[in-house]
């Protein structure tokens, strides 16, 4: 009982502090990512690794056309080179003079997430790790969150995929990862930064009475990336590679406009101007002129 009482007191303290300081979070960790678009080859290994790790259902052609696919991590592909070749892309008779542009997009784990305040049942919330999380058992399927996500990175279970005609006919079910749930019809889901791996590492660190160390948690997409274009780590740990990359790129959390000493650095956050405060930093792609 005493711990419950303690939690209530602590919650109240945090709450008042939040009012005073404006959006203050007392984070234990602040998981963040850095994706180097110049290294990304668009090979899609990350996306398939994500299906394997996170029990994501395949939906088939018909539902894919209806935009009901369940992928948490998609690799977008564009054919324009707006910053280097203005104009060339409009000539219908020309051929492509450069390759394509690839963009791995997973939940940006916004710190001012637009999906959170609209949930009528508080199924989507912010964890003390700085993650934007989804409580499946609480979700009623209003889909307000998905409508409000500027990145279109939330996916909804329009159907149940667990029966024999679903995504995992026997014996495929045996592959399902027991560390996380299989979501049912009517539930919203999204990238979690592999929260099961984070929690496993935190549990282990706690048992050994130490902090989670740099590199101890690897997300499935980061682990498999053939070019190691994805970096992941704790932004509260000043030693971590992601923190160093954010500092090097002069990108700060909590801003919708960065005023950098060196504006030619490659780092940027997608749709930062919407004040979503995303935790994923992208490094601009580089091409020879």
């Amino acid at each position, binding site marked *: 009982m005493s711990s419950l009482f303690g939690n209530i007191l602590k919650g109240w303290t945090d709450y008042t502090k939040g009012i005073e300081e404006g959006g203050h979070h007392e984070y234990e960790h602040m998981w963040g990512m850095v994706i180097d678009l110049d*290294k990304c*080859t*668009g*090979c*899609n*290994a990350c*996306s*398939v*690794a994500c*299906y*394997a790790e996170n029990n994501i259902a*395949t939906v*088939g*052609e*018909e539902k894919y*056309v209806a935009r009901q696919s369940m992928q948490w991590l*998609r*690799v*977008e*592909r*564009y054919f*324009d080179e707006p*910053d*280097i070749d203005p104009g060339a892309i409009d000539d*219908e008779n020309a*051929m*492509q003079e*450069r*390759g*394509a*542009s*690839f963009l791995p997009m997973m939940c940006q784990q916004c710190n001012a997430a637009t999906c959170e305040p609209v949930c009528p049942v508080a199924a989507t919330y912010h964890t003390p790790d700085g993650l934007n999380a989804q409580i499946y058992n609480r979700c009623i399927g209003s889909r307000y969150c998905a409508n409000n996500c500027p990145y279109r990175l939330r996916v909804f279970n329009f159907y149940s995929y667990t029966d024999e005609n679903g*995504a995992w*006919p026997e*014996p*495929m079910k*045996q592959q399902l*990862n*027991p*560390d996380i749930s299989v979501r049912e019809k009517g539930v919203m889901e999204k990238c979690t930064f592999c929260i*099961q*791996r984070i*929690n*496993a590492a935190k*549990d282990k660190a706690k048992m050994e009475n130490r902090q989670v160390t740099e590199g101890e948690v690897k997300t499935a997409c980061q682990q*498999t990336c*053939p*070019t190691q274009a994805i970096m992941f780590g704790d932004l509260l740990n000043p030693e971590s590679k992601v923190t160093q990359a954010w500092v090097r790129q002069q990108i700060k959390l909590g801003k919708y406009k960065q005023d950098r000493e*060196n504006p*030619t*650095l*490659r780092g*940027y956050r997608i*749709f930062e101007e919407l004040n979503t405060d995303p935790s994923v930093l*992208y490094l601009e*792609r*580089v*091409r*020879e*002129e």
Partner: protein
Amino acid sequence: MNQSKLDRRQFLKGLGLGGAGVALAGCDLPSYVTLEQGEENVISYLAPNEYVIPGVGVWYASTCVGCSAGCGIHGRVREGRVLKLEGNPDSGVNMGRLCQMGQAALQHHFNPDRIANPMVRKNGALVEASWDEAIALINEKSKSGKAAWVTGTISGHQRVMAQTHLGAIGGSRHYAVEQINANVWKTACKDIINDPNPEIHLEKAKVIFSLGADFLGTFISPVHFAASYAEFRTPPRGTLIQAEPAMSLTGGNADHWVGIKPGSETALALGVANALMNNHGVAGNGISNATKTLINKHDPETVAGICAVPVGRIEKIAASLAANSPSLVLAGGSATGNANGYSAAAAALMLNQMLGNIGTTITAGRELAYPQLDLVEGNSANLKDLAIDANEGKIDVLFVSGANPLFLAPKSLKMLEGWNKVGFKVVLSSMLDETAEAADVVLPLASSLEDWGSHIPSYAKGTRNLALQQPLMEPVFPNTRGFGDVVLALAKDAGAPGLDDYDDYYGYLRSAISALKKTDSEKEWNGFLMAGQTQIPSLGRKLSYSDGKITPTMNDSDDGNLTLIASARMGMWDGRGANLPWLQESPDQISKVVWDSWAELHPKTAKSLGIKDGDYINIKSASGEVTTRAFIYKGIHPGAIAVPIGRGHSALGRYAKDNGVNPLSILNGASDSKTGEIATTATKVSVKSAGKNKQMAKLMEIDRQHGRKLVATISADKQRRTEGGA
């Protein structure tokens, strides 16, 4: 249905790990602790065996057999099931990384369409039979007649076993069949620089000029090359120039993508050589006078006409190569997929010689000291030979495993007619593919995650390793058997000498590797298994250079038809990925289409044919036709139409069957004049609208960013200014 039969004691016994301390020998990574720890009571076994802590995953090392690269893998095993594959960080092939096919190997293993029991053809239909019945039938039928084996790329002790069996039944020919290969490049390397498998150092190059070689997707060892590519892109950053008629994954990452007329790659290489010699003072040491004469005939203006590439771009390529040393020139994929493919590879090596790359970015590889274990690399010339020999009645008994000749062979080869002339066909397979469906006996194989094996990776830098494959779990389908076990039993029955001491393939493998490593210690054996590999002796090779024969002539008739490019993709690969839903739903890297085939067309061509995006189009060659939907974009030459390989199965399983089309089936009989490789970019087709349209299932409905800062791009000069390294 199988869960009740999972028995860990038997599994461990099968592993040969009887003693206490060694049962978790494969576990060398920190294990996971689950969220539900302490709460999870319902697991696969009410009384778990002594070494398994419920809810804790352990990792076992093995080898991926998705392609012949031989990447090392770690499989996460929990409650007796393998749940996830990751790369083995100790493997020199993939350094802990995996491609999407490696990730999806789990779905092959747990596939609902796997063959559960042996089958024997009775009254024209395949019916389930016992192993004893099937083996007895094989032993009876293979006593007489000319026997042959068909496999994919095969190496290590499986190769020894298959060839021992072939010898014991008096057979002669082993056809190693592989549609996606680098045979032309490797043959040219062997002839010209005296090393079929040189080390290729992408990371040392300042410029890579690739003639169709899709080294990030389908060329030799894609994950390894992707890792080298990442180093190549680290400041000071290298430039990638890709020339090909239809955009590959590597082309999609090019700084400069040069869309050229199919089959004109050799001419482009000669044009670049001409500009190098005449405009940039490159001497051309070691290039023969005959070749120099040929180069002199190919000034950039002439070449521009042949390739449909502007003169300025040819000169720009030459300037870039001349200014940045060392560079690297590669040839593969579409460049080597025509009747003159060998010339393209020879011309690429000639450029490397001119630019002084041989010895810097292309260095000598190492040769195995045990050639009997080395790779028998599959190619499509063997597919052609197989069709011819079968049709000529040279084969009476045929054993097939790891290859699907009835799917891969173009109709023009008359493979099915030849197949039907073979008296007795045995297929060893885990899936009922086109070839297995037409067999007389089908033996159900264990999946790659349930089997023992040893493999030689198709590409290695530095020392050579034998990659080890071990079972990660007990068979999902209990009546399946390992490839090695089946072939060992067949070889013993056929009276092959020296195999009597071995009860199973594990015993054979263990004793062979112990002999190889000159150690019988249990501890060291477990060490090999934990590492997933063991080093074996190899000998250095030495590079030399002598010009290859370059013949730039194109057999191109301007008949108004389009050139069909049967393009290779990482994903479906040669069709083996088609029954894995993860790969079916993984968007193609360039077109972003899922769950179906598509035909790539240039907007100009589409307009002239009256075709819109998503229209069904009819693609007709002299030997057949296919109908699929059009995908219109500018990453293809207007004179070409590209259809990816891999879909269009009439068998294989629920996800693959009747999904998409197979462009290989309508290829004409052309092949590379030197190596005999089936030409994948040399078939003329007529294309017309089939009058229907349906929205394609694809990830991207737009190709432009419309001014939003999604993928931002900066120039390399700007990067060099801010990040240095120049």
